[in-house]
Every structure is written in C-alpha cells, then in structure tokens.
C-alpha cells in the first residue's frame, strides 16, 4: 500500500536566500530520485523555516515494479561461429549473469545482435528509500556551505536532527553523524523540547502546536495581516518592499510584527538615508503618512512572541536611534565638507588599477559629456557641470555607510549647495538604468551623463584587456553596453557607435583602446536587444548588411520584420535564394559593362536596377526603409526572368563576370537594408 514519505532536516539558522534555493532544489531532487527508482508517488509538499527544511511526498509506492529489460550484446557474427558461442559470446553471458543457452538473437537495423531479456525484481521501498534520501541530502547545493566540529560533510549550517518517516515508521537514515528519528523540535524558545510526529500527515499540526509555522507562504500572509492591522492602528502605511518581506519571512519561525517610533528630529536627514538605515541594517519596514511624507515609525517582525512586546519595541527603538544618530552625524559632516571638496578628494580614489583615479575619470567625463551633449539636445556646459560632480559623493561618509545611495546622496548634497536642480538630478540619473529592466534616466542631462560614464568605462576596461569572460563580468561591461544602447534607442538618438567610441577612446591616455573591438562588443549586445523585437535571423540579416547606428539598425529591423509578414516577401524568398550563386563568384567582379549584354533579360534587369538604385538611395537617405523594400520587391520580376533566361556561369569568362557583377550590384542594393540571402537560405 502506498504511504506518505516525510523528511525534515533540522539545522541551525539557515540564511534567508539559501533557504529559498533549498526549498526549490530539495523537492526537485527528490522527485527525480523517486522517478529513477521507479517509485510512483502523488503530491509533493515542501516547507522551510530558519531551523528546518522539510518535504512530504504523498502516496509513495511501497514496492518498485519489476523491471523487464533487454540487454544488447555483440553482433551475432562475433558472438557465434557456426552456431557455436565464441569467447565473446560466453563473456557477454557471464557479464549479464545468464547461461549461454539463454542468449537470444534480435534483428536490428544494424544487423543481428545477441540479446538477453531479463526481469529485475522490484525491491520494497523501505529498502530503496534510505540510500535514495541520503543521496538527495548530499546532492543539495548551497551558495556557501561549511564544515563543523570534526566532521567532513558540508552543509549550509550544522545539521542537528533528522525526522524521517515512511508511513508511521522511521526510516533509518544517517547524515553527518545524525540519525533519523520520529521527533522534531518546536520553536527554539517557546517549545524547546523534542516532539514526536506520529505520521507524515501530522507534521504541520504538530509544529503548529509547538509555535512553528513551517510554511513560508503562511508566515508571509500572517506578516502582511499583522502589518495591515498596525497600519490602521498607527495611521501610516509601510513603503511596499517585497524583497524585504521575503527575507523577513525566512528569518522567523513564527512572526510577530510590532510598530516602533523614532524621534521626529531625525526626519531632517534625507528620507533615503533613514529608509536604508532601517532596511539594510535592521530589516525594518519604513512607513509613510497618508500625505506621502516619511513617518517617524517603523515595523519590525519579531521571531519570538515575547512576554511584553513593549520591551522588545523599546529595545529596537534604541538601536535605531543610535543608527540614526550616526546617520545624522555623517549627514552633517558631509555637508560641512561639501561636494566640491569631495570631487577634489577623488584624486585619492582608484577607479581601476590600469585606468587611474576616479578624478581622472571625472575629467574625461567632463569632456565626453560636453561633447555628447548636443546630440541629446543638452547644453554642453550643463553636462560638464553635472559630470564634474557626479562621483563626488563616493567619498562622503554616508555613501561609505550606504553604498546603495551613491548618486542619491550626491543629489542631496548638490541641492544643499545650491546647484541647479537639472544638474543635481543628473547625479542620480547617471546611474540609471540599474539592472536589465531598470528605468532609464528621465532627463536629457542624465541620459548624456549615463551614456558618457558607461562609454568611458567600457572603452577603458576593454582597452585595459578586462574583457568579461563567460559568466564573469566584474566591471559590468555587458550591463554598461546595454545601458548605452537602451538610452540611444529610447531617445532615438541616431549616432555611429564608431564615432562615439572614437571620441571616448581619444580621452584615455593610460590605455589604447581598439575601437573596432569596442564597437563589435556593442553591436553584439545590440544584436541581443534587437532580437527581443524581431526574429534573430532578421536581426542577423540587417546587421550583416552593415551599419553601426543602433537607431538606424533598429528601424531597418522593424521594416524588414513588417515586410516579412507580407505576401510579396514570401515570393521574394526564392529570388534571394537564387542570389546565393554569388558565393561562387570572385570577390572583385569589376563594373557592369552594358556592351557585354547578350540577352534581353540582362538589359531589362540592368535598366530596372538603375531606376531602383536611385529611388532606394533617396528612400534610405530619408530612413523610409519600408518604402525602400517595396521598391526592392519590384525588382523581383526582372531578377527572376534573368535567372530563367540567362546562364550566369557561362563558359565565357567575360560574360560570366559581367553577369555576376550585375547580380552583385542588385545584391548590394538589397543590402542597403538587409542581407536577405541570410534569411532565405
């Protein structure tokens, strides 16, 4: 009869992020192992809290089915000679444990082979499961694992108990010196004694009675419920923070949310600083008043339902007050020093060993920002001013304490020093976009500086030979390239990447960047970006036709993509395929010579080409790629007739070269938009 299987790994406190990963991995490994062991089962439930990782599989078969299998040995001609088994035949029989008489022959597409049909008897699950479970435990991977005491095993934190039941009986497994039993532990403080779990179905109830909620979803929901009640009570709402909620959920076995306050006077410190101090160090939720202003309140989630909540609240308030006092001290000190002095101190901060100091980077950014500004419709002086200040907050106390606030603090200090808002905002914005889907800088100055900063880093690092390898990209070069492209595309700033890179490279005096390498790196990222909007073969066809202006390439991709959906395009595909004949041609074909035409179809195509060339030229100039494609599609009849009537690879070398030259000219015309041969072939 099928039975439920329960495994609980009792540990010392598991880090929140490791717990999430393990809760995904444990059931996956277990299901795979059961499948491999031919043990049928029903639903799988997984639980996790700081001190436990558990999984229950309902209705696991108590017996493996027998396994009928066919083993294939050597070919008949090897295994038998004149109907008598050879040495090879005997060896095979011996290997699979049958007598020679039991060998049979089976016809396969490759010939006749010796085979053995055998039935492996299924084993009872109780015999299979212990080994299976131990290898699942050993198979769990962690970002960081450790050893403890004199043991050699590694695990995320020391393993302290194992609960393992199959039905109502204990499965005798052992890992890291811990033997499985039928008991679990309740809450570390509220229910410390071991408690017996009678059967897998009881697991959650037993723990509930011992002050533990093993299901993260239930804990999360309870925290949200408690927060909602506190929000009503204190007339303030938390600033939503899913990542923090997830983390806090994994920091407690049973949550108790409480609300604390801090002195109003600390609200003079910028809001971001207060939120960071609460969130980063203390895992507190910050709160807002109904008018959107930061409230002098916070919510924290306790792990123990302590006797007097006020005691715990007062303790947390004292800790936060100390942190905020520190933050206010730093804020005041930084204001005294000022951003201009901060910028000077960057001379002592190394950007990268081979690329000099951050001060040198800032000097380059001032020039590059000013040079790029007109393309962004920005006043070069504004861009230069923003560039000069953009890294100055890196040496402030507060950014040292809260690195995430780089840029944000720069803006605050700039505003305090009377810097125009447009410049101050750019100090925050030049760090955007953060991450793949992050918001782009809203202002032109911010966009200019963001592109300048990323371009400088990209050109410099590639110039210094710091190309990202495989999964590693310590300087965030792929992200930098992506940021540049996203901004250019979003703002439709048509510009040659080659020009941009040359401008940035000219400002580096410690390294000599290879412009082509940087452009290729950018184009490779662009291929990825554009492939999100159109099939990658279209992107490939457009990009291999040349060009290094991302906006122009994007327009061509869009045009071809739209055109690709029309009937005309389908008809053209054959034509493009025929153009592949050019692969057999010499690279240098020379010009088309009308005097060497012999067939009408040649003259017709040449004439049609001549008309189309001028028209396509105009349309491409005006970036009207879809219209250009319509004109190009009109070339199909003369091209088809040409292929039908003309023998391209004529024995006469002159005729052959002339015909190929004509086709090459037509192909070049198509390639003003895309290399269609790549799509069609």
């Amino acid at each position, binding site marked *: 009869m099928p039975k439920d299987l329960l495994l609980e790994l009792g540990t*010392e*406190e598991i*880090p*929140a992020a490791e717990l999430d990963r393990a809760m995904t991995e444990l059931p996956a490994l277990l299901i795979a192992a059961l499948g491999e062991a031919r043990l049928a089962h029903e639903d799988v439930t997984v639980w996790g809290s*700081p001190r436990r990782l558990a999984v229950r599989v309902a209705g696991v078969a108590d017996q493996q089915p027998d396994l009928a299998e066919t083993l294939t040995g050597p070919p008949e001609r090897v295994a038998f000679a004149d109907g008598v088994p050879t040495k090879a035949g005997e060896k095979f029989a011996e290997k699979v444990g049958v007598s020679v008489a039991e060998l049979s022959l089976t016809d396969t597409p490759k010939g006749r082979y010796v085979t053995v049909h055998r039935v492996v008897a299924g084993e009872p699950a109780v015999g299979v499961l212990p080994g299976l479970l131990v290898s699942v435990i050993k198979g769990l991977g962690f970002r*960081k694992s*450790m*050893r*403890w*005491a*004199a*043991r050699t095993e590694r695990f995320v*934190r*020391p393993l*302290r108990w194992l609960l393992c039941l199959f039905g109502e009986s204990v499965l005798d497994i052992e890992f890291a010196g811990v033997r499985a039993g039928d008991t679990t532990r309740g809450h*570390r*403080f*509220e229910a410390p004694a071991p408690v017996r779990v009678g059967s897998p179905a009881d697991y959650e109830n037993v723990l509930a009675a011992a002050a533990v909620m093993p299901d993260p979803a239930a804990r999360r929901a309870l925290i949200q419920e408690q927060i909602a009640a506190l929000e009503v009570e204190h007339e303030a709402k938390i600033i939503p923070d899913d990542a923090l909620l997830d983390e806090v959920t994994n*920091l*407690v076995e049973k949550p108790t949310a409480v609300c604390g306050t801090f002195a109003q006077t600390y609200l003079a410190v910028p809001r971001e600083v207060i939120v960071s101090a609460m969130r980063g160090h*203390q*895992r507190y939720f910050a709160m807002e008043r109904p008018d959107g202003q930061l409230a002098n309140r916070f919510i*924290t989630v*306790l*792990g*123990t339902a*302590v*006797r*007097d909540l006020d*005691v*715990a609240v*007062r*303790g*947390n308030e*004292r*800790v*936060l*007050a*100390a942190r905020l*006092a*520190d933050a206010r*001290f730093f804020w005041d000190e930084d204001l005294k020093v000022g951003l201009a002095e901060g910028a000077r101190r960057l001379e*002592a*901060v*190394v950007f990268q*060993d081979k690329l000099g100091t951050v001060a040198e980077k800032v000097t380059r950014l001032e020039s590059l920002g000013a040079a790029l500004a007109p393309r962004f419709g920005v006043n070069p002086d504004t861009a230069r001013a923003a560039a000069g200040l953009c890294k100055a907050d890196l040496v402030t106390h507060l950014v040292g304490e809260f690195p995430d606030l780089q840029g944000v603090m720069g803006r605050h200090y700039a505003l305090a020093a009377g810097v125009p808002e447009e410049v101050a905002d750019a100090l925050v914005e030049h760090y955007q976009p953060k991450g793949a889907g992050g918001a782009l800088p809203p202002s032109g100055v911010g966009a200019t500086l963001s592109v300048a900063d990323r371009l400088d880093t990209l050109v410099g690092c590639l110039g210094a030979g710091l190309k990202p390898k495989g999964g590693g990209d310590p300087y965030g070069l792929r992200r930098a390239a992506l940021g540049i492209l996203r901004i250019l595309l979003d703002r439709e700033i048509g510009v040659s990447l080659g020009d941009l890179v040359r401008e940035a490279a000219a400002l580096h005096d410690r390294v000599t960047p290879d412009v082509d390498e940087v452009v290729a790196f950018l184009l490779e990222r662009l291929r990825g970006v554009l492939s999100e909007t159109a099939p990658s073969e279209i992107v490939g066809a457009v990009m291999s036709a040349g060009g290094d202006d991302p906006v122009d390439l994007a327009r061509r991709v869009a045009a071809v993509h739209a055109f690709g959906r029309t009937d005309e395009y389908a008809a053209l595909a054959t034509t493009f395929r025929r153009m592949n004949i050019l692969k057999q041609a010499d690279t240098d074909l020379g010009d088309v010579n009308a005097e060497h035409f012999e067939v009408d179809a040649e003259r017709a195509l040449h004439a049609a080409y001549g008309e189309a060339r001028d028209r396509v030229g105009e349309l491409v100039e005006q970036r009207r790629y879809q219209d250009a494609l319509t004109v190009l599609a009109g070339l199909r009849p003369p091209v088809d007739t040409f292929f039908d009537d003309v023998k391209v690879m004529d024995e006469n070398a002159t005729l052959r070269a002339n015909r190929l030259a004509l086709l090459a000219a037509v192909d070049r015309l198509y390639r003003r938009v895309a290399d269609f041969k790549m799509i069609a072939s």
Partner: protein
Amino acid sequence: MNFQDVFLTLQRFWGERGCLVVQPYDLEMGAGTFNPATFLRSLGPEPWRVAYVEPSRRPTDGRYGENPNRLGHYYQFQVILKPSPDDVQDLYLDSLRALGIDPLVHDLRFVEDDWESPTLGAWGLGWEVWADGMEITQFTYFQQAGGIEMDPVCAELTYGLERITMFLQGTDSVYDLQWAPGVTYGQIHHQDEVERSKYSFEVADIDMHFTQFDQCEAEGRRAIEAGCAMAAYDCTLRCSHLFNVLDARGAISVTERQRFILRVREMAFAVAKAYLNLRRELNYPLLGEAGQVKADAERVVLAAAAEKRAQKEAKKAAQKEAKQKQQGSDDSTEVRDA
C-alpha cells in the same frame, strides 16, 4: 548588571564549562581573534577551549569621545570551542541567560553574517546574534585561518561587552555605563578616547609608522627563519596595528591599502604554517598520547609527499639537463657546418 559583572559572569560561566580562562594578550590588536589563543590555537588537531576579555583597538573607529556608540578602544569577550560542540548554540544561549537575558522576554535572533579577516586570511560562516534588534555577539564557525583549513572546526563567540551592558542597563551612551557601583565607563575611558582619536587622526608620526612597519616585517621574517613562530606572530600583530594607525591617519591610499593588507596576510600565513609544524614536532601535546600517533601519521604523509616532489624535481632537472645537452650538441653541429 555592572560592566565588570558582565565579564566576570561570562568568565565564570565558560570556566565552569571547561574553558581555560586566560588573560588578554600584551600587544595592541583590532579584535580578540588576533590573540594567539584564538588565531594560532584554532589551527591543527589539538582540542582547545578558552575564554578571555580582549581590549581591542580600531583607530579608524575613534570619534573623539563624541559618538555614544563608537569607540576606538573597546572590549570583546572571546570564547573558542574546538571542536565546536553539537550544543554550542544552547551553551551560548545559556550564557545569555546567566547574564539575565531571557529569550522569552527579549527577541533573540541568529541573523546570517559571514565573517572574514583579510589580514589573517581567515573566514567563517555564522551569524550576528540580535537581542531586540541589537547585535550583541558575532557567532562564527571558523573554516580557515592563516590560509589553512580548520580540522576540526572551532566555534568562535565574540561578545560585544559594551553593547551587552548597554542593553542590560538600558543606557543610550556607552559613557554612561556603570562599570562598577559609582564608577562610569566614561570616567574610565572618555579621556583616552579623546586623546587616542586626536593621536590617530592628527598626531601620529607617519614616517615613523611606515619605518616601523618595514622593520617589524623584516624582523618577523628573521624570526620565522629562526624557528620562532610566536615571536614572528608578535611582529605580525605590530604590523597590523601600525597599519591601522596609518590607515586612520589617512596615510594609505586605496591601492596601497590592499598591498599593506597583503603584506600582513603573508606574514600571518607564514606564521600559521610555522606554528603548525612546531606543534607537530612536539607531537601535539594537547592531544595526549594520541598526539604522537597523529603526528607520526602526518609525518609519513608529509615524507611521502616530499619524496614525490623530490622525484618530480629530479626528473625535471634531468630533462632540463638532457635538453641543454641536446641544444649544446645542436650548437656544435652548427659550428661544424659553419
């Protein structure tokens, strides 16, 4: 509970649980981990249980006595349990109960915090322990020290004595703590915080500190070569402190910083290796009779490895020689041809 009651209680608590209660080391150091009773004794197979107060100096944390929570000189209470006992968390929680911190009254949490000391080449996994949101202890399972894998692994408990006493007394400033009846922490230490901050940030002679760093580094190397691991470790500690003063004084740029850390680390690595070899030569005295067996077994392994290395090198040398000979004869052929 007074400040002195806190460390007296902890000393008694851990002393009763098999820890040797020792005294602080007599050189400046940034944390109790630097005391040889932790850094060196955590290495190797010998069991070790120890508890002690360590006055710790972090010149960069000095705040002229103006910040109620930060000090350039403070006290840690350090416990090392090797191998880490299976009930180490419960033992630790009992020590908090002994201090009057009841886990049903205060919210106690073990929050992930991986520890690393770049200068000592040491790292471990563990937590910071929170009491009502205040970090009161660093709890670490050492995985490596001096670049050497721990075997067995020890547990390190580092109590922040001022923090715990502030928590117990409910004071907002470290200087208001009652050290003993009628005496505050501020009365004992405020003046030296002010003076030490001034010294580290403004007064310390930069050239002298750089010179001493170089001298101590060289002396440490000499000591190692002479088989005096402990003396070499003293030099390492001096270098570490000299570096900390220079860092506070703003005399070390960001790039140089990394280089100085590496210099101290190299010394720590060399000391760790030398110390372990010396303990082996002594047959791991703290293992009792098992020490000789363990040391002999290791000697066999080491000898085999050394022999293998020697063979490999001999082979390499022979190949090199043969190659040179070959080249030599090639050269002579050329000469003849010419």
